[in-house]
């Protein structure tokens, strides 16, 4: 069995003392930022990227991955106890989770979220391990045309699944692609859009954009709300154990959430947030048993399913990154950055050239999930304490860590001036109701897309039909068109709006 062999290599790597420690640090940090509202995995990973320079690549990736899926666990705690999504992927958990807490059932709600996430995490990791090899095989048949079409599909996916206006999301992607063009053109060696600023010839640092838009923009927007809106009411937790009936209700919901989340995670543009939304919508469609409370009033299925789905989605969204080298969402785009920092070119060759990294990362995810259950259930008291830390202490610390993170990337103050500008832009985006995540994805994919399009058209002597005459490429483009058509159908677009109105 190849798979078992590979997993054995992976566990061998992941079970070394230092890697266990980094997995633990990642999970701990992930839970921490998941619990704290107003700071997400995106900003945290961006902040810690520079700090991972000194680490070996495996350790760095293990830690950063831990932050991402750890945040999925932590987010649910805040959602249930405080009626605030600690993480955007926990937005729907708030609806039923907080109601359960108000009815004195915070414990079972937390347990449902934790156990659901754990189960989903294990399944997601297995899927990742099982699908990685065949998908990598497929990836080796990809030429430039296929890669270009795949990126189109990915970007369309990101648009379709973004909340709010479709047109604005497309515009944000293109804006991201354009920002990615800033810097020296690899083919002609010409400096583009640099406005004669020397520092810009290397392009805009993506940490600068991530930090400015997601870190500062969010903080400014949070502070502009009145302080009473940020007040924290903490429900008390007594007794974690769900009843027998709870178990009966939540097991099928967890199974449905896990399968839905795993599929949506693999799809380009998918990931934890969309998975949670879809899972909740699905649960609402199923029939209520006579003994159950309705959704929105504290139904345990409304907690278990989306929490399982977001964790499964977080896990499987590593598949396109590790096999094709294409990030399906903004967090994965940061992981591309992390890999490039360590001189690893993301793509199908990672599995063969760095097997210990590839399988070590996968194995560490399983270990990380186990750690997280322990961190989040028995130790729940610590996180509840943390929720009482006032925001006025929190945000200066976040500003500081962002600034340190940005400065330490290149040790230049120029990056600090840039991040200030992007902080303003990030706030502007929030004010204008445009979602910034597609922008970051476009920014990462921009240079790659241009390069692949160039190569594809060079090979075909300028004939654009190469994109549709090669069967794989045509299939990918067809999928992208189908996705767009589906969301544009009046019945679906209406439903899509109602799904997102629920937050």
């Amino acid at each position: 069995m190849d798979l078992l062999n590979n997993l054995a290599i992976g566990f061998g790597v992941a079970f070394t003392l230092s890697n266990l420690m980094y997995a633990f640090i990642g999970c701990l940090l992930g839970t921490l930022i998941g619990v704290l509202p107003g700071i997400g995995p995106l900003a945290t990973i961006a902040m810690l990227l520079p700090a991972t320079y000194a680490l070996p690549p495996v350790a760095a990736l293990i830690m950063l991955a831990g932050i991402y899926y750890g945040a999925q666990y932590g987010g649910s705690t805040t959602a249930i106890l405080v009626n605030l999504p600690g993480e955007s992927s926990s937005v729907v958990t708030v609806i039923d989770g907080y109601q359960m807490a108000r009815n004195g059932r915070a414990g079972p709600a937390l347990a449902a979220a934790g156990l659901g996430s754990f189960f989903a995490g294990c399944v997601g990791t297995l899927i990742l391990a099982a699908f990685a090899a065949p998908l990598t095989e497929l990836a080796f048949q990809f030429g430039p045309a296929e890669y270009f079409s795949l990126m189109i599909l990915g970007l369309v996916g990101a648009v379709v699944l973004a909340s709010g206006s479709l047109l604005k999301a497309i515009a944000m992607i293109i804006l991201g692609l354009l920002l990615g063009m800033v810097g020296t053109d690899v083919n002609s060696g010409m400096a583009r859009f640099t406005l004669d600023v020397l520092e810009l010839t290397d392009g805009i640092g993506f940490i600068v954009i991530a930090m400015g838009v997601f870190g500062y923009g969010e903080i400014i927007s949070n502070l502009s709300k009145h302080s009473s809106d940020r007040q924290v009411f903490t429900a008390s937790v007594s007794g974690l154990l769900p009843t027998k009936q709870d178990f009966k209700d939540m097991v099928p919901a967890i199974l449905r959430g896990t399968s839905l989340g795993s599929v949506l995670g693999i799809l380009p543009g998918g990931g934890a947030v969309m998975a949670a939304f879809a899972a909740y919508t699905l649960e609402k469609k199923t029939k209520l048993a006579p003994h159950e409370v309705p959704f929105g009033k504290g139904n345990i299925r409304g907690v278990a399913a989306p929490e399982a789905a977001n964790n499964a989605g977080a896990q499987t969204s590593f598949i396109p990154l590790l096999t094709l080298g294409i990030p399906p969402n903004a967090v994965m785009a940061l992981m591309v950055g992390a890999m490039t920092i360590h001189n690893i070119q993301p793509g199908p060759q990672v599995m063969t050239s760095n097997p210990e990294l590839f399988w070590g990362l996968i194995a560490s995810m399983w270990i990380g999930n186990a750690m997280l259950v322990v961190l989040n259930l028995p130790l729940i008291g610590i996180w509840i304490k943390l929720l009482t830390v006032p925001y006025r202490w929190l945000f200066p610390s976040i500003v500081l860590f962002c600034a340190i993170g940005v400065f330490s990337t290149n040790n230049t103050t120029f990056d600090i001036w840039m991040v200030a500008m992007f902080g303003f832009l990030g706030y502007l985006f929030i004010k204008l109701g445009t979602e910034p995540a597609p922008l970051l994805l476009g920014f990462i994919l921009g240079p790659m897309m241009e390069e692949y399009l160039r190569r594809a058209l060079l090979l075909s002597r300028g004939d654009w039909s190469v994109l549709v005459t090669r069967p794989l490429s045509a299939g990918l483009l067809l999928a992208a068109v189908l996705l767009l058509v589906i969301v544009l159908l009046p019945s679906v677009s209406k439903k899509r709006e109602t799904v997102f109105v629920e937050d």
Partner: protein
Amino acid sequence: MRIKSQKDFFSGLMFAAVGGAFAAVSSTYTIGTGARMGPGYFPLVLGVLLAALGVLIAVRSFSSGPEDGDPVGRFAWRPLIFIISANLAFGACLGGLPSIGLQPLGLIVGIVILTFVASLASDEFNPKETLILSIVLSVFSYGAFIKLLNLQFPVWPAFLGL
């Protein structure tokens, strides 16, 4: 004619302007042909697309939008200015400003200044608390970033010559 969605109208304008600017600049670069793309080819296509989308979004904002007109709302200048300046001041402390002859003041001074300026962004500013917070953050950052992660920052003001 009334604008039905202010947010859409202004974001449309923003996209149109930025797209137009990118397109205009790219058209000064070599465009080339499909088979031999110049540095201006891809950005020109994207810039034109973005500008067109921006116009479309702005035009549509006249016909559809939520009932309240989807106002952009007031800018929160206080947090905006203080958060951004806290960040700028920190940069100046670490890197110094050679153009006006300011030498780096180092990490610790930077942290104290950043904490105070950033805290002013909130409407519940409390000097005593902020002082304590800045000390805690200084100690933590010194331990974590300088000692543990070994980042190469100036820690103390350059004029002390430490």
